[in-house]
């Protein structure tokens, strides 16, 4: 038997919960209204009550709590075991997971274990009349959206790209909590974290003004940072710069990075590959500077400027300073 339910995996982090989990709840509320399926937030570990309330306030009709201290930190072995044991006998119709690194790690393996279908990195979600989840995935470099459905196997699983949907707070929402205590004592954790080094980061998906540098900057972000300070903007980069370590990975914009919703995005020395442009699709206004007038980026911006950033930026910075 399957439950007429949509489950959303709530990914916890140091500051509480990943935004993408709440974003999926936002979309889940809509899907739940269309399909009549109940919306359930799946939380693992021993979280504070505050977190459970947060999940309900963001739309969950119920919280399924997999209560065990061994689940306070993500590990493939523990999580796949606990979740599959919990749902394999009466799986929900739909299970949605944020496409973060750990989310994707969990989703792939869980689908393998549960013998069901999984779609990855969806940017659209809908449920048709037969109750089938259709997950839209950009394919072939983002030229085409493939809508994928899971014919066999339940739950119908999909991971969802962060920054795609909007969270919604639902005032005075009430929800119950179902507790289950998984027994993990026999499970061996085969992958262990031996070192972790993280610092506080700004979340690029919330950045209102963003300056994005590509290979055209030659990896030198000095001018970009100066301008960013003057216009109170955040810095983002294309993947090659993140690969080379010029900027940390969480500043990467694009299909394997973050999707921006900025009011204004200034794109400098970027060739406009679809892997990149999918990340600026939702920006209100895009301005691009590139030396190559044929650059594909000019098909994705509101203001197109053919020019050398090393020539235009110093002048721009000077003028910004003068007219401050």
């Amino acid at each position, binding site marked *: 038997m399957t439950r007429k339910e949509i489950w959303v995996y709530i990914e916890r*982090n140091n500051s509480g919960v990943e935004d993408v989990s709440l974003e999926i709840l936002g979309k889940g509320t809509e899907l739940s209204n269309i399909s009549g399926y109940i919306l359930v937030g799946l939380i693992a570990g021993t979280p504070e009550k505050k977190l459970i309330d947060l999940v309900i306030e963001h739309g969950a009709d119920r919280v399924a709590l997999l209560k065990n201290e061994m689940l306070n930190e993500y590990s*493939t072995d523990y999580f796949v075991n606990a979740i599959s044991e919990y749902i394999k006998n009466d799986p929900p119709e739909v299970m949605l997971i944020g496409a973060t*690194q750990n989310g*994707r*790690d969990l989703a*792939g393996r869980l*689908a*393998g274990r549960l013998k069901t*279908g*999984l*779609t*990855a990195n969806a940017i659209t979600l809908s449920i048709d009349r037969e109750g089938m989840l259709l997950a*839209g995935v950009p*394919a*072939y*470099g*983002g*030229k*085409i*959206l*493939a*809508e*994928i459905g*899971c014919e066999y196997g339940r739950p119908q699983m999909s991971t969802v790209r962060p920054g795609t949907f909007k969270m919604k707070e639902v005032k005075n929402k009430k929800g119950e909590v179902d507790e289950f205590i998984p027994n993990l004592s026999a499970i061996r954790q*085969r*992958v*262990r*974290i*031996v070192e*972790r*080094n*993280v610092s506080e*980061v700004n979340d690029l998906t919330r950045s209102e003004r963003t300056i994005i540098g590509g290979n055209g900057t030659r990896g030198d972000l000095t001018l970009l940072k100066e301008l960013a300070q003057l216009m109170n903007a955040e810095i983002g980069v294309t993947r*090659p710069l993140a*690969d*080379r370590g010029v900027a*940390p*990975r969480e500043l990467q914009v694009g299909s394997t990075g973050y999707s921006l919703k900025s009011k*204004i995005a*200034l794109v400098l020395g970027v060739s406009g590959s*679809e892997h990149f442009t999918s990340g600026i*699709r939702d920006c209100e*206004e*895009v301005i691009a500077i590139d030396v190559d007038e044929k650059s594909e980026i*000019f*098909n*994705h*911006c*509101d*203001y*197109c*400027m*053919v*020019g050398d950033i090393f*020539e*235009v930026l110093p*002048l*721009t910075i000077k*003028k910004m300073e003068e*007219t401050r």
Partner: protein
Amino acid sequence: MKNIIVCVKVVPKSDNIIFDPVNKRLDRTKAENQINAADKSAIETALRIRERVGGKITLLSMGPPFFEPFLKLGIAMGVDEAILLSDRNFGGADTFPTALVLATAIKKIGNVDLVLTGEESSDAGLGQVPSQIAEFLDFPQVLFASTTDISGGTLIARRSIKGGYEILESDLPAVVSVVLGAYQPRFPDFKKKKWADNNYKVKVWNGEDLQLSESVTGIKGSFTTVKRLVEIPQSSRKKIIIDGTPEEKSSKLVEILRKAK
């Protein structure tokens, strides 16, 4: 080290794919192909591990016969062997049967310490095959590794995470997916390439060799189906051209930036 397996896929260069909006089909006939970029990083990772701790590297790929010359490119990069898993019934597979076929071949090869894959393939971009191979082999998995090494019989991998990095340690055998850009892949050796083109024979295994029934591979073994292909609408940006001298351009830029505040 015993056997190191690198799973590679041949993918079309996406620029060459044409979408036919009338028939809602992809025209791949004009597309050039290449080894998936991240899989090249996985090959490079394997070669570096072999330099340090030895082992035999086998490339493994599920796909049609036209993949063969690309696997020979791997031979020219320095891997020891290449096996193509090819069968009419393997066609149309989603990630589940793909991983099942690959995992079954890995079991058949036997004595495997390490399975390397790319983080995701550029044509489907799902990144699910690695964890499903791991599931079917009951191996631990480390995804999105930027560096991978073996030390004292343990796997050590580093990966980027939000705000920094982490270093993971894993039991062997394990499955590791390698990020695009992890290492700059070396160029194929020209002489070896010529030799491989003329003399190397890629081993080919079909469904029977793997003792996999038709019902679990290809379309029949898949859980998902593509319901519709939709062209993603071209961006409706204004595309206003700003030209002039650098002076004029920067003045205009200042104006636009100011307006946005």
